[in-house]
């Protein structure tokens, strides 16, 4: 009996008194240098006891005297079996590549724009190849080959292209750079033109409410731009661009590694246009003259072994614009009636820090902290109107990722804090306000790895001006058959409208500004609240043996409250809270097809029904076409064996149906416009010649059919009169424009 006792007692120690062997697996090379082979399989023959080598090729494995044969295998290498006689001696083994097997290269071509079949959210990913299809000089222009985002024609005053999604203007889209909301507040109007296109690595467009992680402000959708990472970008990159309108741009990227864990990148952008253009002879410049200097310095810290990644970014921008009448001289005519002119000077400074930790042993556990501070100062005047804005903003967000029971149930939770200080000077009035909010969010994702996944999120925020509120959002994806994805979503968004910053074009009119309302906390107005509902169906198909996909998207945005921007009286602009209904319904169908190798075709039709109950009745939102058609074709020549050179061709066609003009009935007959604009069609094309991975040149044309809106400015003959208005822009003002440029890189 006693013996039995002892045996039982000793059992655990026998079973668990495993010895260990250790060693290192290396890649065979001529000099026999110890180059560790990461990820090789090491296991005892005929057992399940095995491991995978770490990043340096090292491994530890339990040992038992009955184990004799150690198997080492790795794809692309010959599998070896070693006989282990002395477990105390570390194993050092060189694996030889399999020589009878030619190097296997998988040549699946990744599409440059792709909708995910698997994610719950309706996300369109745009990679850098797509961004090169148009020599996009800044972020606002980089959406031109994407039908989910509508890019408006630039007005003559700001020269900036505004974007729309689901029929709603950009303030209703949460625009973030690397998941930090960045184009908001004071930078809403021109912010997209302050991010140079070459800095962008990829863009993710989420249609519908989106995730709760980045805040409560998104209503129509979210756009996230990932910037270049110093560790991945080329050592040196130079992009030079010149256009027939004498726009010149220079982008330079310099990346270097500092030690083994630090990478640093310096990105410089300069652009200038210093020529006055007036193709329609209305004595007004067709686009502003400007100079922009934009500098970004990034520091990246990566420690993959311990799971740390950090970014520190510093950004500085100085932008000056001048526009107006050709004979306007800012030195003598500023704020006088000698000539109508405008200047917009912007200075912006940003600092952001990101810190990420992924538990190297538990891949689902991670922690992320994002912080950003920005200071934005715009000083501007438009004729006799003065508009200055200072905006300081602080953002902090901490996100913790983990799972519940197993990796099919993921959670994200965290806290966020925002602080915004606004100081605006509008003619004679000073508007100051502080906004701050503290919030907590929780998001649960379920993925059954096949047919279904969903993301349900909720956040609770306390905001000094918006009050306490809950933001729920839900996204579901279901794939009943192959290559299909049905999606549904709903969500709530809430925001304070920055009425002046978002509608700066109003200053280039002789309209009187009226704010009707006094009980609210933001300019006397109440915050905007909307619900967004969406349904989407994506189906991949094979037609004549070639791949394609078709999408149908329906989205509906219902405003519970809105700050209505009422342009319906040509002498006034009125801001008031919604009474009645305001909605934006959108339908989009998109077909992507690859009719033959290297040729891609994309076509889309979009229908928008965007209406608001104005004081004067329910009307369609001005300058929002009901029908739009989009087509893009791209072709690349085949990459020849051993050669790097190739040609790339791209063409984009856009057709816009008639757009409603805000009412001009109250104007004298000579200053009245029809109810609707004519239809507009534009064609852009670009040819790129790639000489090698180091060097390429491109040549392109915008609006090649030379379509022009002849009288973009109402009352241009009398800019200080009662009927001056530069906001009725429905098409291109400047005719066709051609450009050429080069890209040079050293990896």
């Amino acid at each position, binding site marked *: 009996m006693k013996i039995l006792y002892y045996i039982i007692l000793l059992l655990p120690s026998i079973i668990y008194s495993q010895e260990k062997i250790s060693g290192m697996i290396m890649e065979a090379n001529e000099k026999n240098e110890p180059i560790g082979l990461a990820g090789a399989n090491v296991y005892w023959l005929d057992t*399940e006891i095995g491991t995978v080598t770490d990043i340096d090729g090292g491994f530890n494995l339990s040992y038992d005297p009955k184990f004799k044969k150690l198997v080492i295998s790795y794809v692309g290498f010959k599998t070896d079996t070693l006989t282990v006689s002395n477990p105390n001696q570390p194993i050092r083994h060189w694996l030889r590549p399999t020589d009878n097997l030619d190097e296997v290269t998988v040549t699946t071509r990744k599409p440059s724009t792709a909708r995910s079949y698997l994610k719950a959210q309706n996300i369109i990913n745009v990679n850098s190849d797509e961004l090169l299809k148009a020599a996009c000089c800044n972020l606002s222009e980089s959406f031109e080959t994407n039908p989910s985002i509508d890019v408006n024609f630039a007005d003559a005053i700001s020269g900036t292209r505004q974007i729309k999604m689901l029929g709603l203007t950009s303030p209703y889209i949460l625009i973030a750079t690397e998941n930090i909301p960045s184009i908001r507040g004071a930078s809403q109007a021109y912010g997209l033109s302050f991010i140079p296109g070459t800095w962008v690595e990829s863009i993710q467009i989420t249609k519908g409410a989106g995730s709760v992680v980045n805040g409560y402000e998104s209503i129509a959708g979210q756009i996230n731009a990932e910037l270049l990472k110093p560790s991945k970008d080329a050592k040196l990159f130079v992009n030079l661009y010149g256009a027939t309108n004498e726009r010149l741009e220079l982008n330079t990227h310099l990346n270097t590694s500092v030690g083994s864990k630090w990478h640093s990148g310096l990105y410089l952008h300069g652009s200038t246009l210093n020529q006055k253009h007036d193709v329609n002879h209305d004595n007004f410049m067709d686009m502003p003259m400007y100079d922009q200097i934009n500098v970004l310095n990034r520091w990246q810290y990566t420690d993959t072994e311990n799971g740390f990644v950090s970014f520190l970014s510093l950004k500085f921008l100085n932008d000056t614009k001048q526009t107006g009448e050709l004979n306007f001289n800012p030195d003598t005519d500023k704020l006088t009636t000698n000539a109508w002119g405008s200047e917009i000077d912007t200075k912006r400074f940003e600092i952001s820090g990101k810190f990420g930790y992924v538990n190297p042993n538990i891949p689902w556990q991670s922690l992320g902290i994002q912080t950003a501070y920005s200071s934005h100062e715009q000083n501007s005047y438009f004729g006799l109107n003065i508009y200055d804005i200072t905006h300081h903003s602080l953002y902090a967000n901490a996100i913790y990722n983990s799972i519940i029971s197993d990796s099919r149930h993921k959670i994200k939770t965290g806290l966020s804090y925002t602080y915004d200080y606004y100081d605006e000077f509008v003619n004679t009035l000073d508007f100051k306000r502080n906004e701050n909010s503290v919030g907590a969010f929780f998001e649960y994702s379920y993925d059954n790895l096949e047919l279904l996944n969903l993301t349900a999120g909720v956040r609770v925020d306390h905001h000094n001006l918006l009050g306490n509120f809950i933001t729920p959002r839900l996204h579901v994806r279901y794939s009943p058959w192959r290559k299909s994805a049905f999606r549904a979503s709903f969500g709530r968004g809430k925001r304070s409208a920055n009425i002046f910053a978002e509608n700066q074009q109003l200053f280039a009119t002789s309209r009187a500004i009226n704010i009707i309302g006094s009980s609210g906390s933001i300019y006397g107005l109440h915050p905007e609240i909307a619900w967004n509902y969406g349904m989407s169906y994506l189906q991949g198909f094979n037609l004549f043996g070639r791949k394609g996909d078709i999408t149908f998207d329906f989205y509906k945005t219902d405003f519970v409250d809105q700050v209505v921007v009422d342009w319906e009286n040509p002498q006034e602009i009125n801001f008031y809270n919604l009474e009645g209904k305001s909605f934006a319904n959108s339908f989009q169908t998109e077909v992507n097809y690859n009719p033959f190798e290297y040729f891609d075709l994309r076509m889309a039709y979009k229908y928008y029904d965007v209406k608001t109950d104005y004081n004067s009745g329910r009307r369609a939102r001005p300058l929002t076409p009901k029908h739009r058609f989009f087509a893009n074709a791209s072709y690349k020549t085949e990459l020849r064996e051993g050669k790097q050179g190739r040609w790339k061709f791209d063409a984009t066609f856009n057709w816009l149906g008639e757009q409603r003009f805000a009412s001009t009935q109250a104007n004298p007959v000579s200053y009245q416009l029809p109810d609707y604009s004519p239809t507009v069609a534009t064609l852009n094309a670009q040819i790129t010649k790639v000489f090698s991975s180091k060097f390429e040149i491109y040549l392109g044309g915008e609006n090649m059919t030379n379509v022009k809106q002849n009288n973009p400015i109402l009352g241009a003959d009398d800019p200080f009169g009662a009927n001056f208005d530069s906001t009725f822009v429905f098409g291109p003002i400047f005719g066709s424009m051609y450009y050429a440029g080069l890209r040079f890189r050293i990896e």
Partner: protein
Amino acid sequence: MKQIICIVLMLTGSTLVAQNKNAKGSMEVDGVCMMCKSRIEKACLNTKGVKYAQWNVDTHQLSVIYDERKTNLEAIESRILAAGHDTKNAKATDEAYAKVHDCCKYREQVVHDAHDMHKE
């Protein structure tokens, strides 16, 4: 006295065995496509105690993280076999293999070739 030694030894025994809540394991599992991937990973995750499963289509390597108090590699492997996928050590039964979708019949060379064609 003996009893105390007994208890102490037993306790040390169990501390030595202190089982890992996030034990890692890996094995080679045969399969051919993304459908196989989701089948294999699902089979693992459906085993109580398995928290994470990742199968690589190219290397056929499966990595799992599981709670040693609740399950072990044998149990996980038997689930994979039941789902119709062979492992390095054992073959799935013909019945189990028969349930695998036609495009995933990894034991047949034709299916492999079809998938390779697809990749190109």
